[in-house]
Structure formats: C-alpha cells, structure tokens
C-alpha cells in the first residue's frame, strides 16, 4: 500500500512562495536579533515586531489568494535528499485551515510582540526575549505549513525548544528553571509516541508526505481502516498531541509553564504551542479510525473536566487561566474525537483570540501589581508579596477600565455567552457531542456514551464559576493588599490604565472575541464564514446537520448558573472579608486540596514513575560501580600483572639473548683486535709463519 509513487515534485507558485516567505521571515528576525540585537535601535524590539507584522500582512495575502484559487490545497514540493532508492522531499502546503492558522499565529504573535515591548521594558535579558519570540513563531509556522510529517516533527521539537527557552526565560528563578525542564521532559514523552506514529506511517506508505498518504487512505473504507496498524499509528500521533496540547495525563507541565513571562503564556496558550497538538490532529485526521477517535474523545472529555476542576481553587491569577486552557483544549480534542472536525478547529481559532486576550489583560493586572510593589519600595516599604496572588488583588475595575472591558469580553467568550465568539464554537462542540452520543447510544444501546456530552455540559458550569470567581477577586470589591499594608491603598489610587502599546492589543483581541467577528448571525454557528471554509477529510458531524435547539439553551442555563453561583459564593466570601474563602468554596478541605494540587498528579507521578525510576537508577548505578567497574578493575589489574610478567621476560629473556649475541661479538672482536695491535714486526712474524706453513703445505702436497 505504498504511497511513494504519488509524491511528485511541484514547483513553487505565488501562494506557496509567499508562505515560504512567512516561514523564513521570523527565522531571519531570530538570527538578526540574536546576534545583532544589542546594536539595533531599541534592542531590536520594533524590528522583530515589524517583521511579524509583515508576516501577518503576507498571511492575509496568502489567505485571499488561496480562496481565489478555489483549490483545496496548494502544495509545493522539492527534493530534500535520497537514501538509496528512498527519496525524501520537503513541501509547503497551503490549505484553508493552514491559511487561517497562519493568520491567527502571525496576528497573535504580532500583538504579543507589541505588548511585550511595554511589558518587558527594563527587564533582565531584554535583548534575548524578542529573538526567542521570533524562533517560537517560526517553529509554529513550520508546523502549520509543512506537509512532510517528518519536517513537522522537527518544527514540533523546535516549538518544544523555544517554549523551553521562554518558560525558563527568568532563569535566575529556580522555579522557572524547574518549570522549563518539566515542560520539556513531559513533552518528550508525547514526542516518543509521535515519532513511533510517524515511523509506522513510513513503514506502511513509504513516504512522509501527508498529502500522498491522504490520496491512498481516502480510498479506504471504515473496515480497511479498522486494522490495528491505523489504531497504533493514530494513537502514536495522538500521543504527540497529548504532550503538546496538555491533555490528560500529561497536562501537568502547563500550569508550571506559567513561570514564563505573561505575554509568552499568552502566545503559548493561544497560538503557538498548545494549538500545535490540535492542529496536528486536524492534519492527520484522515488516519484516525473509530477506535482511535473514541479514545481521543474520552481523553478529551477527561481533560475538559480535569482542567476545569483545579481552576476553581487556584490562587495564582495565571494558573486559573492555565487550567482553563487545559479544559478548553480538552473541548477541542473531544470535538475531534466525536468527528466534529470543523467545530474543533473553530474553537481552536476562537479560543486563540479570547485566551490571548485573557492572558494579556491578566498580564496588565500583573504589570500594575509590579508597579505597586515598585512604588511601595520607593516609599521605603519592601513588601515581598506575590504579585500574581488573587487573594491580595481586587478593585482593578476602577483604575483599569479598558483592561476590565477586554477581560470581561474575553471571559464571556470563554464561558460561551451568546454574542461572543466562544458561544458559536463551544455550542457547535456541545451539539456535536450530543449528536455523537445519541447516535452511538441508538446503535450500541449503552448509555455510557452520554457521559461525554454530560462532562462537556458540567464543564460549562465550572468554567463560568471559575472565571467569574477570578473576575470577582481581581476586578471587583476593594484592593485587598491594603488590608495588610495601609500604604498600598494610596499607591493603588495613583495607578492608571496601561500604556497604549499594551492597550491596543487588548482592544483588538477583545474585538476578535466578539461573535460578530466570526458570524453575521451571532446566534448561529452555521452562519459563520469559518465553518464553510473548513472541510473535514472524513465524513463527520458538520454543524449544518445538527439539530437540537435545547442544547444552546442548556449551555446558556449552565453558564448562567455558574456565573450566579460564582456571584453568590464570592459575595458571601467578600462579606466575610475573605477570611473563610476555603470553607465556603468547597465543603471538604480534602477535596479542596485535591483540586488545588491538580489531583496530586505531580505527587502520583513522583511516586509511581520518578521514585521507581530513581530507585532503578540507583540500582544500576550500584551495579555499575560494583559489578561493571569491578570487572573492569579486575581486567585492568590482571593486565598490569601480565604486563609485569611480559616486562620481566622481555628484560631477561629477549634482551638477554640480544645481549648475549652482543657480548659474544664483543669478545670475538677483542680477541681478533688483539692480533692487530699496530706492531709492524708482529705482522711480519704472522706473514712469515703463514709463508712457512704454506711452504710446508705445498711440500706435503708435492710429496
């Protein structure tokens, strides 16, 4: 079933050449800023921002040209190298979803660049920050564009590397170093699966070109695809997605990744890193069979809930959003699993905008907290408070109205309130899960399938609850740091809205979080331009075919209950002066701690994986030092002993023989030399004796 004969070299046309330009520009920006960043104006921040801005404009051009061409995918393919008969190619593939992703990635990256100029001003290693952002963008664009899955894997690893560099950007902080290491290592686990999947595909199809594989696979029917091969290859690739998109059980790295600068978190959570996993699923979607999709749906559903529950109890303002991202990624993966391809990608795009907006507005709050800390320090109060702790925030609505507005719009989009973008995509997913479950239930008769839509609906409620909790803690009531330090109130009063460089991205992103940005009719996903652009490679649940008017109603009701519950609980908490926050939140202390610590997954992994791993390492280390080293020592000692014996033999036997020959020669020489002692008369005597002897001899001979 080889597909290698379908791999044809295709020249670059305008669209693919432009796409290649979009790919190379951030890399160029990385190199220039990395090596000459200090010499360029303003340490190169405006330069990097401008480069990504150009990329964004080019992305729009690519999108428009691709739409005009009317083709499903535009591919350019050039030879890479060949090993024996196997030829390897590099390809740039522009599809509808790739063009949209290009716009999303470059747009959000551009806004994050712009935001960072202000946010990172005066921070340590400022000139290293922008090249890393450029590298990150480059890697993500590479994943988006490459049709060769091996090249995709390389960019995939490059995304891992650049996230490592950016999460550990403040490397003087021990926790940041640990977080970056954790993110990198946990991602590696997923990548192993991804690589196995890639090699499986290559072993079967003889090529890495996804388009060629698609040409072959699309002729298969469901039975052809039900083989174990497709399940293993699909699960392998899905494992890569589990690592990168922080799905259960590998989601543990994402909350720790909050150690990076906040604009980086926005980039990771919106456009670059975690989106890569879902995008990979979309790219290889045609490979998945029923079994794989079921596993994907279940993992997605588990992740949805596993992300939302801890988000309810976090104190760190960014960690709430991190868990929220896990939960939303769970929605996307779940949608992929229930064959709602369009809905999943739609949610990926809408989520990119509103989550970036959430992170950037939260970043504005953290920025203000830093300023408060700084001003207090200038006034002689050195207070070592955590500027990301929501328990000491509050009242920011008064001083930062634009930030609050942006936060409000994007959080409503996150909850899925009508008129906001999240409503469209999330309801498409909810509808699809319901449809999928009811179809499966009527086919198999098992009601367990309803668990997945049930999880999705419950999570809507939890999402509304935790986001309202955060909004309440951060933006409403009074500034609570003043309860501890009276001076803080005065400083807080002098705070004002963030500068325009930070305000502009917030405004733009909050506009993009409105429902109108995606659909003329903000109540119907079918009216969205997005759904019409994207076409699933396998027959699935298209939003058009969905019915069930009660689903959006239920979701709105759930969201409203969540918001109301959040309001009730936190109003009570506020009236108690935030003393009994824990008690009122959850009845049991244990459940609270269980959620707060992300289900103790870190501890679990430490107990069942890391500790046995270290024990095994200790055993192997002991084996190494005792057994292997002992054996090597024995060998070396015996070699030395043997060498001594050889040396003795050499000295006395071999050298002795040589010396004997020399001594004999010397003695002979002495003896013969004594004959020739320079006395002429003795020579005469010898001659005489010889002549006499000769005469005697001749005489004897004659007779």
């Amino acid at each position: 079933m080889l597909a290698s004969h379908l791999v044809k070299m295709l020249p670059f046309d305008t669209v693919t050449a432009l796409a290649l330009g979009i790919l190379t520009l951030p890399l160029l920006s990385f190199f220039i800023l990395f090596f000459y960043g200090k010499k360029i104006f303003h340490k190169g921040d405006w330069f990097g921002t401008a480069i990504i801005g150009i990329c964004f404009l080019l992305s729009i051009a690519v999108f428009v040209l691709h739409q005009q061409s009317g083709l499903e995918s535009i591919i350019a393919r050039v030879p890479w190298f060949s090993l024996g008969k196997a030829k390897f190619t590099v390809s740039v593939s522009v599809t509808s979803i790739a063009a949209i992703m290009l716009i999303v990635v470059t747009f959000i990256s551009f806004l994050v660049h712009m935001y960072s100029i202000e946010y990172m001003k005066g921070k340590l290693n400022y000139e290293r920050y922008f090249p890393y952002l450029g590298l990150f963008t480059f890697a993500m664009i590479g994943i988006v564009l490459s049709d060769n899955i091996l090249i995709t894997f390389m960019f995939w690893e490059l995304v891992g590397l650049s996230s490592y560099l950016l999460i550990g950007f403040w490397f003087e902080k021990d926790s940041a170093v640990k977080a970056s290491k954790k993110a990198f290592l946990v991602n590696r686990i997923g990548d192993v699966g991804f690589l196995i999947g890639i090699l499986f595909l290559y072993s079967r199809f003889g090529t890495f070109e996804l388009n060629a594989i698609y040409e072959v696979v699309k002729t298969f029917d469901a039975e052809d695809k039900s083989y174990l091969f497709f399940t293993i290859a699909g699960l392998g690739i899905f494992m890569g997605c589990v690592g990168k998109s922080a799905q259960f059980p590998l989601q543990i790295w994402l909350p720790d990744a909050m150690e990076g600068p906040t604009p980086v978190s926005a980039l990771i959570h919106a456009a670059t890193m975690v989106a890569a996993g879902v995008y990979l699923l979309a790219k290889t979607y045609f490979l998945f069979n029923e079994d794989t999709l079921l596993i994907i749906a279940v993992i997605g559903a588990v992740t949805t809930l596993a992300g939302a529950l801890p988000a309810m109890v976090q104190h760190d303002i960014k960690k709430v959003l991190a868990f929220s991202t896990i939960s939303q990624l769970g929605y996307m993966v779940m949608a992929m699993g229930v064959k709602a391809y369009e809905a999943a990608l739609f949610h990926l795009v809408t989520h990119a905008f509103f989550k970036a907006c959430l992170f950037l507005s939260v970043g504005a709050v953290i920025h203000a907290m830093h300023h408060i800390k700084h001003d207090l320090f200038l006034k002689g109060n050195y207070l070592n408070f955590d500027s990301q702790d929501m328990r000491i925030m509050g009242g920011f609505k008064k001083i930062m109205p634009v930030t609050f507005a942006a936060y409000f719009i994007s959080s409503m989009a996150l909850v899925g309130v009508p008129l906001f973008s999240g409503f469209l995509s999330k309801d498409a997913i909810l509808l699809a899960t319901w449809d999928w479950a009811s179809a499966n239930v009527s086919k198999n008769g098992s009601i367990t399938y309803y668990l997945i839509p049930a999880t999705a609906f419950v999570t809507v409620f939890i999402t509304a609850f935790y986001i309202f909790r955060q909004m309440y803690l951060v933006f409403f009531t009074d500034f609570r740091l003043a309860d501890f330090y009276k001076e803080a109130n005065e400083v807080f009063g002098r705070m004002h809205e963030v500068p325009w460089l930070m305000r502009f991205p917030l405004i733009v992103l909050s506009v993009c979080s409105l429902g109108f940005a995606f659909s003329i009719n903000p109540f119907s996903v079918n009216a969205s331009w997005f759904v019409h652009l994207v076409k699933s490679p396998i027959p699935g649940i298209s939003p058009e075919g969905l019915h069930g008017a009660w689903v959006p109603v239920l979701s709105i009701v759930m969201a409203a209950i969540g918001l109301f519950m959040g309001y009730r609980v936190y109003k009570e908490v506020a009236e108690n002066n935030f003393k009994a926050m824990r008690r009122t939140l959850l009845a049991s202390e244990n459940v609270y701690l269980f959620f707060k610590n992300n289900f103790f997954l870190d501890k679990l992994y430490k107990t069942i994986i890391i500790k046995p791993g270290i024990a095994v390492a200790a055993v192997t280390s002991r084996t190494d030092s005792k057994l292997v080293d002992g054996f090597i020592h024995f060998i070396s000692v015996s070699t030395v002993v043997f060498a001594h014996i050889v040396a003795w033999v050499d000295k006395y036997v071999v050298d002795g023989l040589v010396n004997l020959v020399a001594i004999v020669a010397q003695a002979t020489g002495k003896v013969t030399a004594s004959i020739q002692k320079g006395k002429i008369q003795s020579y005469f005597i010898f001659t005489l004796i010889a002549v006499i002897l000769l005469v005697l001899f001749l005489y004897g001979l004659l007779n």
Partner: protein
Amino acid sequence: MIELKEYLLISAILFIIGLMIIITKRNSIFILIGIELILNAANLNFVAFSKYDPVQLQGQVFSLFIIIIAAAEAAVGLAIILKVYSYFRTANVDEIDDLKG
C-alpha cells in the same frame, strides 16, 4: 768453480739476515735496510740462476729492474719515514700504532 748451491746458500743467509733485521729492529730505517738486504738476496738468486742459462738474460734484466725499483722504493720509503718522523717525533715503529684494530 763456484756451484749454484753456494750462491743460493749466500742468498738464503742474506735473506735470513734481512728478515731478522726487520723482525727485531725497532728503528724504521733499519727495517728499510733489512728490506734492501732481502731484495739483494732475491737479486743474487736471479743472477745465479741466469748464470746457468747462456741463451737468455731474463734473470739479469729482472735483477736490474729490481735494483732500480729498490732505489725508487728506498727514496719513497725514506721520504715517508722523514714525514712520519716529523709528525710523530719518533722513528720507532712500536710507538707508531695509530692504525691498530
């Protein structure tokens, strides 16, 4: 009439005397004299044998050559001895042993 035997006897005595001089004397000039005696012993032999060969005179001619060569040899030999003497400040052959093995 003197017989050949007597000639040969004289010649042999002369030869032995020359040989003894060569072996026993330390002075190089004496050794040269000894060599002359040995050459003359040979000459005597040639002439004696030639006396009994009335037709041809090879022996006498041969001895004439030897006399000439002996004269040249003596000249060369004495010159060498002079040079050796001026270099080593001795004519004693026992002391001139630079060529010993």
